């Protein structure tokens, strides 16, 4: 962590000549007797993306952004201002604006600066520099060729490669300084296929907090190409999806978007403090079958949803949300934890310095259960087997959630039979997991593709689960 703090000071403080005495000056402007806590979030991020289409690399972009967000909290009130210029006059002006939510004069209570705790889950490096431009382009071309090699019905291949180098430093009114250098890479492939006038698409991808070499290891990138083509070709054969309520078996990995929507958002601290979640006040109650244990874990090495520290400078942790079916805990940021007299769980996250932090998920997944996945399929007389999904959405107040299958099959007499078209599944968060009657022993995490949106802010997240069976879920097909 010392290395991250050194990098962050060099990147964020040195150009503006900011040191501890300048920080003290800012905090003495920011603090008032009725301000409970305040923090500064310094950020510098550099992002690139390359896109291949029609067999050529036709687009590339490069983006630099930096700035500082200034927040003052007084009870349940938050004052917030930010500047995309990290210089002392802008910091002081933003501090005056942010503290205006609180009345009263100056107060000078400042504690000695000290470094906060953090994890070392990924290397503090710049992923954009881990490959030359020539190598990045060669990688895109290889992925394109691999996808086209799969089948003559492949018509169009779109490959994108992106990298982010994010340096953050959090200084708070407790005198804590903490920093994180966060690499993030992503590769995505979309394949369009056509046969007798019918067209379909498939897509695949992955990534994490690595350098770009991650995509070359174990032939990962080429694997995404084959997977995208395979999905598109399966969809060419798909018949209309069924409509109605039936048993649904969800495959391992990314179908864990079920957990993210059905229970994850509803267990975020802000909604529960406000009493607006369908899970409010239900800790200790049964909300799932005995086979279900679900955690939110920000501490997995190199995962897309992992963080050494959250965006409030708190070390991330593994939080048990549901244990053997019983609701155990919420995900908290500092403000909501304080107001609920709980502890932060290291889930305070924000899209950037220009956004306020709030409780957000990291990597949310269900632990293994006792069942053999083949046995789970065999147990279904007539139902749906869904192995891949697009996105989902939830209304945390009514508890209703959806997630949309992009690859699914009918199960007939205990066997997986025909592929069916994509369909949206809809259910009720507080009771869907009580209908989970079987949980497999094949837990997998997704490949590193998740983006979660809340209040207009996007953050990278992960999900995962073993194969599982929901006895009754509504499938939104047409037949």
């Amino acid at each position, binding site marked *: 962590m010392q290395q991250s703090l050194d990098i962050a000071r060099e990147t964020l403080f040195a150009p503006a000549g900011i040191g501890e005495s300048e920080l003290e000056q800012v905090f003495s402007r920011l603090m008032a007797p009725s301000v409970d806590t305040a923090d500064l979030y310094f950020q510098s991020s550099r992002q690139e993306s390359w896109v291949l289409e029609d067999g050529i690399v036709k687009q*590339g972009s*490069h983006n630099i952004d930096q700035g500082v967000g200034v927040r003052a909290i007084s009870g349940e009130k938050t004052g917030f201002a930010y500047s995309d210029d990290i210089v002392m006059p802008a910091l002081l002006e933003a501090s005056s604006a942010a503290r205006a939510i609180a009345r009263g004069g100056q107060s000078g209570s400042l504690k000695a600066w000290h470094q906060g705790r953090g994890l070392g889950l990924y290397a503090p490096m710049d992923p954009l520099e881990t490959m030359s431009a020539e190598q990045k382009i060669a990688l895109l071309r290889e992925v394109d060729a691999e996808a086209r090699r799969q089948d003559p019905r492949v018509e169009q291949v779109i490959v994108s490669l992106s990298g982010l180098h994010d340096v953050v430093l959090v200084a708070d009114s407790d005198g804590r300084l903490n920093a994180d250098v966060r690499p993030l890479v992503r590769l995505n492939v979309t394949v369009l296929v056509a046969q007798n006038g019918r*067209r*379909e698409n498939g897509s695949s991808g992955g990534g994490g907090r690595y350098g770009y070499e991650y995509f070359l290891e174990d032939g990962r990138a080429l694997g995404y190409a084959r997977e995208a083509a395979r999905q598109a070709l399966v969809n060419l054969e798909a018949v209309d999806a069924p*409509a109605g309520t039936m048993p649904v078996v969800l495959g391992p990995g990314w179908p864990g978007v079920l957990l993210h929507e059905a229970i994850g958002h509803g267990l975020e601290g802000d909604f529960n403090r406000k009493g607006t979640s369908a899970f409010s006040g239900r800790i200790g109650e049964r909300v799932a079958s005995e086979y279900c244990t679900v955690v939110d874990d920000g501490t997995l090495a190199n995962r897309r949803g992992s963080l050494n520290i959250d965006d409030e400078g708190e070390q991330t942790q593994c939080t048990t949300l549901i244990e053997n079916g019983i609701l155990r805990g919420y995900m908290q940021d500092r403000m909501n934890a304080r107001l609920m007299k709980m502890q932060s769980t290291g889930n305070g996250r924000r899209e950037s310095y220009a956004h306020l932090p709030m409780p957000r998920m990291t990597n949310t997944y269900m632990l293994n259960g006792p069942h053999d996945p083949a046995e789970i399929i065999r147990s279904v007389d007539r139902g749906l087997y869904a192995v891949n999904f697009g996105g989902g959405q939830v209304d945390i107040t009514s508890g209703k959630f959806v997630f949309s299958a992009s690859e699914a099959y009918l199960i007939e007499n205990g066997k997986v039979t025909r592929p069916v078209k994509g*369909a949206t599944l*809809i259910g009720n968060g507080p009771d869907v997991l009580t209908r989970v009657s079987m949980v497999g022993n094949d837990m997998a995490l997704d490949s590193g593709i998740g983006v979660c949106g809340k209040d207009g802010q996007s953050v990278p997240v992960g999900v995962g689960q073993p194969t599982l069976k929901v006895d009754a879920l509504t499938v939104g097909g047409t037949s």
Partner: protein
Amino acid sequence: MAETLIKNTTGTLPGESELTLIVEQVLDEARRQGASDAEAAVSVGTGLSVQVRQGEVDTVEHQRDRSLAVAVYFGLRQGTASSADFSPASIRATVEAACAIARHTSEDPAQGLADPDRLARDIPELDMYHPWALDADRAITLALEAERVALGADPRITNSDGAGVSSNSGIRVYGNSRGFIGGVRSTRHGINCMVIASDDQGMQRDYWYTVNRVPGELEPAEDVGRKAAANVLRRLGSRRLGTRKVPVVFQASMARGLLGQFVGAVRGGSLYRKASFLLDQLGQPVFADWVTLTERPHLSRALGSAPFDHEGVATRQRDLVAGGVLQGYVLDSYSARKLGMETTGNAGGVHNLLLHPGDKDLDGLLAEMGTGLLVTEMMGQGVNMVTGDYSRGAAGFWVEGGEIAYPVQEITVAGNMKTMLRNMRAAGNDVDIRGAIHSGSILVDEMTVAGE
């Protein structure tokens, strides 16, 4: 009630001439670094937003955003870069980054600036800039008013997700190396409120919002609160439905989304990639024969107005669909060249696309439907743009004999977009203009509803 002392307003914007100068610096720098062509957009936005909840201030946010985006061309190769820093050193570095990318991209015959004869010459004044002398105290007072009315409307309204007031001003200047330079100044203000009602079956939430370029044209805060309350109360007691095939009315705000999906299918990017369910449909009937969709980019004060598009191309009024027949596509220069066509001035999207309304209001549409589903909320993505397959989560009301019978939830609505557009039977006159697509409610014959 208000516990704030902030007196500063949303801040002032730089002048158009100041940003024009920056655009010129960027274009000069690109030329200096050897680019054969370049284009740049510089924008600055400033805003204030407050959120209150349960009669207290929740957040007060001051926004100020800047961005500079540049695209450079070396013949038929392109590179782009962006930054939030307008300093000369940053301009140089940003142009360098774009040039470095252009050295590695491939030659693409469709690449390049908009054709010079399509660039806007006369820039119409569209009256889009109406700053609001709003300080945080006043914003908080308005938000509290909206929430107070909503919370006081009925004892079953037990909680609040809060009410908010926001005011944003922005200026964007675009220029390119063929001599075009133009700026647009605009404002956008809003009031919103979301409340929660509960009964023995659980909680429901719903909301209302108003948004306008002109502060005086916003709905009064108490009306926002009253409508939020009415919306949430009527959802209490929601039931599920059995699986069935029925006609569906998409309430205006949802109908706008449906038309947005149609626009996605006739957008150049979807067409040249052949990732659209409306390939090769130009001149063909894609909607029911009564449907006309007109794009009106020069409407005074409207949210989707634009004197020129993101490439400087003149925008103009046109029928996208007339008598149900597709009259054109939604193209920028790049996708137009890929398709062997001309740009339609839609770099950045459609501008005030209006579905010509019918003569009935929503109640009239429900009467015409007779028995079926009124959809007031949709969840999830659930639209396959390649095939048109449509399957989304929904909530709304079961309608019998033209009258609302009871609220419904936890159901899906499914069909195929191609059939849905052809099966549109009527549009209401309850036109919702809170965005770039303007539409009343839409009645669609027979869709599959899945539930219990």
